[in-house]
């Protein structure tokens, strides 16, 4: 129960940023250490920032977001093939140029942006869909539960990579991008609707199945609360920790899945050049122009690693049984 003690107790890293939560209870008389009336979220935040890997992960992820979305302002090289080709990293092109003269740094900034956009859209859509369907299945049971569960069983029968590839095959022939800014949104929606929401829906369904039998739900029902109100105001707030952790895992998986899909040539198309597509375009040059592989690879790993660290930290921080924080 060390986490219930106010700042100043031994054990935490001295001077750590989490030690004095903003707006936390002021230290009273010298030596007084009592049970703080800190909110649940303040406890979570404190545990999170004490988790060094999680903190590093979130700083890294923020840096990647900044790099992807503010990068073009600082590095305004053209994305097109207007530079000398096959320049090794350094000098005027810090990360070199590719075989037809595209600046790699500019390409990676835009690739990171597309990869992140796809991952965030997938996480958002899949989380909303998974939570709503999972909660309804768990709360209403009966035919709604059967329908959702069988749908998940069915969609699990076909590998997600293949479902996505089949659907993406048509979407880019139908709409060869250009005007719409590429097909990244299509790919993101396909990933979200056909793969990413099942694990979330299954987990939430299981939790809701047990939560719906609890006394507070019975009380809400006795007070005449409507079904949506019970589900969304009373039951789902109890699953918020699981939802958040699952959403971060989804972000990491979406980055990997999308890059794999683009790598086999059935994912995004230019101008939606994601990191996976950058690797795919230069896959035959890996031995001769190695930087064309290693830099996009590095950024894919950085994104998924940072998100996984954040997810891991959140999992520990949100777990009320957690007593010690892993170093």
């Amino acid at each position: 129960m060390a986490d219930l003690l106010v700042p100043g107790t031994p054990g935490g890293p001295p001077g750590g940023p989490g030690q004095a939560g903003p707006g936390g209870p002021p230290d009273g008389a010298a030596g007084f250490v009592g049970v703080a009336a800190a909110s649940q979220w303040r406890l979570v935040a404190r545990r999170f920032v004490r988790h060094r890997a999680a903190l590093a992960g979130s700083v890294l992820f923020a840096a990647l977001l900044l790099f992807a979305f503010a990068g073009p302002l600082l590095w305004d090289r053209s994305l097109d093939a207007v530079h000398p080709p096959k320049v090794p990293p350094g000098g005027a092109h810090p990360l070199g140029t590719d075989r037809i003269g595209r600046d790699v740094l500019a390409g990676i900034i835009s690739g990171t942006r597309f990869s992140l956009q796809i991952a965030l859209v997938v996480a958002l859509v899949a989380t909303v869909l998974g939570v709503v369907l999972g909660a309804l299945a768990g709360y209403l049971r009966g035919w709604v539960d059967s329908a959702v569960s069988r749908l998940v069983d069915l969609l699990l029968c076909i590998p997600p990579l293949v479902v996505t590839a089949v659907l993406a095959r048509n979407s880019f022939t139908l709409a060869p991008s250009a005007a719409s800014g590429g097909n990244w949104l299509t790919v993101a929606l396909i990933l979200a609707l056909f793969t990413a929401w099942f694990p979330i829906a299954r987990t939430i369904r299981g939790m809701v199945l047990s939560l719906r039998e609890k006394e507070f739900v019975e009380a809400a029902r006795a007070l005449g609360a409507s079904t949506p109100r019970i589900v969304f105001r009373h039951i789902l707030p109890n699953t918020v920790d699981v939802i958040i952790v699952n959403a971060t895992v989804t972000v990491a998986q979406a980055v990997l899945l999308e890059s794999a899909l683009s790598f086999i040539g059935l994912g995004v198309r230019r101008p939606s050049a994601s990191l996976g597509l950058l690797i795919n375009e230069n896959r035959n040059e890996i031995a001769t122009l190695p930087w064309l592989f290693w830099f996009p690879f590095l950024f894919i790993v950085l994104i998924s690693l940072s998100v996984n660290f954040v997810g891991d930290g959140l999992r520990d921080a949100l777990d009320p049984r957690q007593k010690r924080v892993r170093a």
Partner: protein
Amino acid sequence: MLRFAARRLLIAVPLLIAASFLSFALTTAMGDPLAEWKLQRPRADTEIAAQYQRIGYDRPIMERYLDWAGGFVTGDWKTTVVPGNGTVEVRPEIGRALGVTLRLVLVAEILALLIGMAVGVLGAVRQYSVFDYGATGAAFVMFSMPLFCVAVILKYGGIELNNWLESIGAGRWIVTAGPPPGGFSGGVGELAYQYSGTFLLPVLSLVAIQFALYSRFQRASMLDALGADYVRTARAKGLAPSRVVVRHALRNGLIPVVTVFALNLGTIIGGAVITETVFGWRGMGFLIVDAITNKEPWMVQGWMMVTAVVIIGFNLMADLVYAYLDPRIRYG
């Protein structure tokens, strides 16, 4: 147990029928298989109409589905349809590809399971030791690795190794372009050399990703088991620590891992897409990428059905294994 198995089998039938609808819908959503052929050069309307009639695309969707489904259950899975790619029978092609992929996947999964189990058990027995932190860190990094990058890195590592082997006078051991078309031949030593060189890299790339998953599951379930009352009892009555770990904790700690293994075997067929693409194995993964790129409806359809059967089969096996290993699980 028998009744339970029979019931699960019966549930699998409507699931398979639904899967055939879904895969047909997906195949249809892929679009007109002749779209690109028509764009190659201007063609006479009669020629186009004749081609559509040949592949049956002049008929309504429902009729096409029934036609395919009738053929599927009687063993006629149709052929490839796009003119210019040659006509390939779907069923023998998928059978051949499935054989290639299963060899690769089974070897890789079993290796990954064994390594993952060993790492997970050691990590749990020595919780918070240097080994545990190292294994946790390694698993974490492997989780964040794109499989195709691991495969590509291994491939170029293999080529470098070959160059080095050649420079010291040995042969090019590592094969990065799939199993030899003529099969393996020669004496035992020769065979071992060929097999190891061919399987090493694709198997390694699958193992690298999968072992992380198994080691995490094994560590978690082992920690649960080690904290259980019966383990404390076993220790209290003075059993040797190794006996407690192996006979008491491990036996129960295996249950979730074996279940995950069976579930995973089904899905890994889709996961082999990347490995096969990189290493040029002409298995299921290679086949589906090829079929989707060429918009071959019956090939894609047959592939999805076979995969669905494999996945449903392994899920069924996971259920049965779980029910067998854990006698507390009783299904009505």
